[in-house]
């Protein structure tokens, strides 16, 4: 039933791109192809890219496209099985033991089991999409655990036995590439590197995402951001920042600042590093004028 649904949505890369655009996410051909292949081949999708290029947004859009809930597992250094798989509710177990008195009680019942993201997805693979966010932050042990999960889609709970997924869940992994992932993990996945979009696409994204920004503004912002990214900054602005910048400048302009001035004043939402700001400040006027003109 749900499988038919998936195949109806993902008939071709173009169809995927169209559905994503309906969910307000503009994917280029390459990304649409990767998503299409991941869905149809039943493999996890590994998205890598610089911070702020829309990896997490892509996962949200995929969940929306399939009409499923997104279950997000945020990784961090030291994340372990109790945070990713399952945990027992010990307090409730103790209370239940005391409450039961002489009666028999199964303390490994479902109601004492706290399902963490991986188990949640395993239990309802056709209603949920799993997003494992920023996997590069976790350590190697966790990567190995995830590898086991992704290859068999099963979890062993010593007290309960093995829980298997009834269908292949859809899994999306993202990484900022602060460290290299294990080859074994990479090769199990369909891989896509998300780069910064070109000016035209970025303008379209700004139009789609920002509130009420004029088309000329969106284009100016997109080309100015392209120029700023070409500079050697510590933190090049991402797409989200560009959208914010367009929003902020529009608000300032309505408040009475003329155009180049509004852009200059709103720069704080685009560049969030003091040294980058002082580096770009002398050139900013020229960049904005060039982008507007």
């Amino acid at each position, binding site marked *: 039933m749900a499988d038919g649904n998936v195949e109806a949505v993902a008939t071709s890369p173009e169809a995927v791109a169209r559905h994503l655009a309906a969910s307000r996410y503009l994917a280029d051909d390459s990304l649409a192809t990767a998503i299409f292949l991941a869905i149809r081949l039943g493999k996890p999708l590994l998205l890598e890219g610089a911070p702020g290029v829309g990896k997490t947004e892509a996962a949200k859009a995929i969940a929306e496209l399939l009409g499923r809930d997104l279950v997000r597992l945020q990784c961090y250094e030291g994340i372990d099985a109790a945070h990713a798989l399952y945990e027992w509710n010990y307090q409730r177990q*103790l209370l239940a033991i005391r409450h039961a008195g002489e009666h028999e009680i199964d303390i490994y019942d479902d109601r004492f089991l706290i399902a963490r993201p991986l188990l949640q997805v395993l239990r309802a693979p056709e209603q949920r999409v799993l997003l494992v966010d920023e996997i590069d932050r976790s350590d190697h042990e966790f990567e190995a655990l995830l590898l086991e999960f992704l290859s068999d889609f099963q979890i062993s709970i010593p007290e309960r036995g093995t829980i298997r997924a009834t269908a292949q869940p859809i899994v999306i992994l993202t990484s900022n590439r602060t460290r290299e992932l*294990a080859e074994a993990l990479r090769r199990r996945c369909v891989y896509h*590197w998300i780069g910064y979009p070109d000016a035209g696409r970025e303008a379209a994204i700004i139009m789609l995402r920002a509130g009420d920004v004029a088309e000329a503004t969106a284009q100016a912002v997109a080309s100015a951001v392209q120029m700023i990214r070409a500079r050697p900054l510590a933190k090049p602005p991402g797409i989200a920042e560009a959208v914010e910048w367009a929003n902020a400048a529009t608000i300032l302009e309505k408040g009475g600042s003329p155009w180049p001035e509004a852009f200059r004043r709103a720069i704080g939402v685009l560049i969030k590093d003091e040294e980058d700001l002082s580096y770009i400040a002398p050139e900013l006027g020229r960049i904005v004028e060039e982008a507007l003109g």
Partner: protein
Amino acid sequence: MSGINDPFSPFTGRRGPEGADEGQRHAGQSPAPPLTCLPASGVEPPVSTRPSDPRKRGEESLPRAAQPFLGFACLLRRYGFAIAPEQITGFMQAVTLLGPRSMNDIREAALATLAPPPDRHTEFEAHFQSYFYGNTSIRTEAEADEETRVKDDGGADDERIEAEQTREGGELSSALEQLSSRDFQREDDRLTAFRRQLSSALPARRSFRTVRTHSRGKLDLRRSLREIVSADGDVPFPLLRRRQTVPRKLLILIDVSGSMKLHTADYLKLTHAAVQGADRAEIFTFGTRLTRITSALRLRDRDQALARVAGQVDDWDGGTRMGPTLLAFLSVPRFSSFARGAAVVILSDALERGGHAELETAMRRLSARAFRLSLATPLAGDPRFRPATAALSAILPSLDDLIDGSSVGSLTDFILSLARPAPRAAAIWKRVS
């Protein structure tokens, strides 16, 4: 194998065609240049025709139309791309799913399933062009990607200064060679001891993970409950656990410019011991460029490791652009994130040519990321040394330690003492001067 176990390097297993055949070449296959199996070239690949040839046998059982895809994957493999059999299967499935309606579909399928690392996309593209279109005009240079070139802003000036420094270094080195050879045996013992002690001597941080313990910890509910159930409701004794401690990362940056010529060899031996001894160490060299040499130093044999480093680094004994190279280091996210929370040791004399504004910025940023930022300068071996140069006094506030880097002994002692607290460099040197 240096690169294989290296989780940090995107260049794992990167070898040229001549190096790629260690595990890849199949029985009976002649060492043919890789492009001879081009479908477009019309030349029969010079593989053996013996029926027992596993490669040949595999290709015959495939449908004719599928052969180019297997061939392309094999070609990539020969150039050091790590491609698993299941990825090749996935590639073929993907091509089937997509139609393929155009060459672009094949390219997208290859990118998604064979997953070449983003740094090698241009190389991948060149192979794709040459294999499927027979277009060999696009050539990729087999150049070390691990170095971040720094924009050259004064080419003519550089050459003159580099030449001067080389001459100066050459004269001095003959005088010091005797010194270092006399001390050689003792130095080796010292390095062996350093390697053994390092992993336990590095500063530690608390990990998120817990270990079982008998004292000083929090109640381990999970284990306690199991114990209670198995003991029939009794509580025998509380079981505890506490947070684990793990050693911090160690990052060493070596200045290989001409003015440091006397010390680079010693420093490389020291860092080789450090890479062998520490769990997570990263070593870079910088001069006019930045080069990551950790993977080369992973080789257990020191002479081999140092020979490999010698081949990787291009800017031996050149000029120094410490500020720009350190900024370049910080602008590569996976490098700079390694510095976060790490013990960073820079081995340099900090004799920055020209302005020191960039150096100051770089050091400030680095110290904001690092757990402890230390500069070891060989000049401090002289008792009359004071951090008086403009560059040194500018970066002194960012430094945690400014120490003597003139001998291996003082450096090993210092690195082994990193876990112990010490007053900041500025406070110490104010007292001295």
